[in-house]
Every structure is written in C-alpha cells, then in structure tokens.
C-alpha cells in the first residue's frame, strides 16, 4: 500500500511537472506593451534555498499572462490612473499634495526594489505603506490611509510602476538583521489547524497544483497585484493574511511587526527578480 501511494504520488508529480512546463515553458517571456522586456526568472542569490527564482507570472495561465503583458488590458492600471490624480491633489490641513514635495511620480524610481527598508529616523523597518502614511500625516496633515484600502494600494501601484524593471535588492543585514531572522522564523514555522508553514507550499511544492491552481514561489515582486478573484489591487500583507486563513491559522494584523518581518524576509528571497507591480494574478 505504501509503495502504491508513493508511486501514485510520483506519477502525479510527474504529470504536474509537465503541466507546469506547459504553463511556464522555458521560453515564455514577459514583454510589456510589446516593447519592455521584463525578466521573470533569475539566478538564486547566494544562500537561497531555491535553485532558481521565478516570478509568480510564470505560474499563471496564458490568458492571465497576456493581461499583464499589455498595460491597457491590465486592470491594475485603472487604479494607477486614479492614484496619479491623487498624487497631485492637495489634501489635509497643510494643503499640500504629494507632487508639492516630490514632483512627478518618477522621482520614486527604484524605491520599490529596496522595500521594506530600515528608517533610521523612526528606528523601525518601513514598508512603502509606512512611508506614504507618514508623509500624509506629518507633511500633509491628512488622515492616514487604510493599509489595504483602494487609495493605498493604488498609490503603492503608482510608485511600484516607477520601478518597473528594477532588480530587487533588499538589504537584510545591519539594523534589520533582527527583523530578518524573525521573518525567517515565521516563514518556516508551522501554524494553524492544517499545521503548515509558508515553506511547505512555496519552497517545497511550487509549480505543483493546489486544487485548480499552480503554487508559486510566493515572490513579492509583482505586488500590489490585481487579483481576478476580487477584482482589485491587493497588498502584500493582505495576501499574507489570505494565506494564513487558507491554512486555518489566525492571521497577524496588516502592518503588524510579524508581517513587516515576513515581508522583509520574503522580499529578500526575491533578490535578483525584477519589479513587475502592478501585476495580474488569479
């Protein structure tokens, strides 16, 4: 019986590997608007547990891949347009807009590729959301945005877009070393009723089907991601929450130290990949 189970599993795995090859052929490449090539594979950084890095785009169906290959078809761009308007709209008691201090959004080029990073002034690990809300509260005198609200994800999409094509290079040493270790521990700790860790799916079984879908490596280079299932942009922390619910665990709060640490660790696993956001995912 045991042998049978094992061979069935092996057979299943082989078939799935082929399925993976069909979806994500070695030669499938992402070219946005027919002119901007975006590498979706990268050599694993030193010390990585993964043999090679794959963007989540590789694991999606041909149709979903095509949506991301055209900025018009990419519904995430609707929210980028809205954020563009918000960028130059004054708000709050100071009567200032993002544009008053930062100029055009392209002043943010390259930023997304280094997030999350240490903010020495605040003495804290900062995500893109933190920087946006700090600017809103401190400099604009406006209300902070909700972590995964439409305005926030739109703005992170606009800022991520400025870094399209930039290679992810998240620092893991120095003052953030402690958070990095904490994130790593969360990544490998089994939790919830299903008793699973992030690594069980995204490290041990990427490319394999989970129900009707391919498991990805759980890379964050495509965030914020427009998900077809909820027809909106999704933040990294919202996705973490979804994963934790799926394994019947009680999720941490968006913006909590746990998720910040996890975001840092997961982002660092993608060092070498290229910023895609806003991407299109299932």
């Amino acid at each position, binding site marked *: 019986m045991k042998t049978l189970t094992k061979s069935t599993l092996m057979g299943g795995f082989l078939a799935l590997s082929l399925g993976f090859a069909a979806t994500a052929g070695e030669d499938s490449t992402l070219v946005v608007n027919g002119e901007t090539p975006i590498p979706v594979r990268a050599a694993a950084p030193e010390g990585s547990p993964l043999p090679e890095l794959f963007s989540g785009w590789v694991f999606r169906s041909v149709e979903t891949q095509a949506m991301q290959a055209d900025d*018009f*078809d990419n*519904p995430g*761009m*609707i929210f980028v347009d*809205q954020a563009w308007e918000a960028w130059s709209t004054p708000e709050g008691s100071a009567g200032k807009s993002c544009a008053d201090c930062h100029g055009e959004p392209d002043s943010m080029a390259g930023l997304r590729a280094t997030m999350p990073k240490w903010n020495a002034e605040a003495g804290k690990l900062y995500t893109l959301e933190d920087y946006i809300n700090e600017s809103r509260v401190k400099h604009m005198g406006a209300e902070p945005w909700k972590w995964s609200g439409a305005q926030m994800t739109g703005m992170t999409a606009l800022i991520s877009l400025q870094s399209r094509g930039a290679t992810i290079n998240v620092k893991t040493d120095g003052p953030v070393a402690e958070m990095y270790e904490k994130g790593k521990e969360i990544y490998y700790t089994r939790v919830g009723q299903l008793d699973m860790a992030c690594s069980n799916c995204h490290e041990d079984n990427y490319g394999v089907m989970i129900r009707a879908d391919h498991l990805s490596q759980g890379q964050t280079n495509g965030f914020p991601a427009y998900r077809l299932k909820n*027809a909106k942009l999704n933040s990294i922390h919202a996705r973490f929450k979804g994963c934790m619910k799926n394994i019947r665990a009680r999720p941490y709060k968006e913006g909590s130290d746990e998720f910040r640490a996890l975001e840092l660790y997961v982002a660092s696993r993608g060092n070498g990949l290229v910023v895609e956001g806003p991407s299109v995912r299932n």
Partner: protein
Amino acid sequence: MAKIKPRVKAPKSVAAGEVFTVKTLINHKMESGQRKDKAGEKIPRQIINKFEAIFNGTPVLTADLDPAISTNPFIEFSMKISEAGDLAFKWHDDDGSVYETSKSIAIG
C-alpha cells in the same frame, strides 16, 4: 466609489477598409443587486446597463449589459471604416449618468 474614468485604446490612423481592434475598459463596481450588506439589507443594483460605440453618428456596437458582467467591464471589438471620423463611446449607468469619451481616427 472612486471616480469613474473610461479608458479606450484605438489606432490613431488606419487604412480604409482595414479591420482594427478597439479595446475599452471602465472602472465600475457593477453591483449586481443580489448581495446583502452586513446588516442583511439588500445592496441596490448599480451596473452599467448599456454600452454604445458610435462612429460619425452610426452605431457600431450596442450592448445591453446584465448583472453577471464582472467589475470593471472590458469590451473589445473589431471594426473597419472607409472615412476618417470620431468614434464616440457611451456607458449608461443605472443611476442615470452617462460616461462618455471619444477618439478620432484618421485614414492614412
């Protein structure tokens, strides 16, 4: 709901009689009228119920949309023209508002 802004992609110029593709996308929540809010109250239906594409006053495509159409409806169609002109688009909302945009297409 966020500001509604239609997006259209059409070529600036085409050869006479050449078949070309027009893509349109509008951000709209397309509330089906089937859902209930947290208090158990029915959320009233609010969808784009009609889409029109009109070239120089002649309808090219008219579509009646129903509640099963997804959020942010994307409509793509092919057409050909023999003269230059304006391609006008209209999205009719349940609340009575009409979202409009247009594109000029030249022959060349």
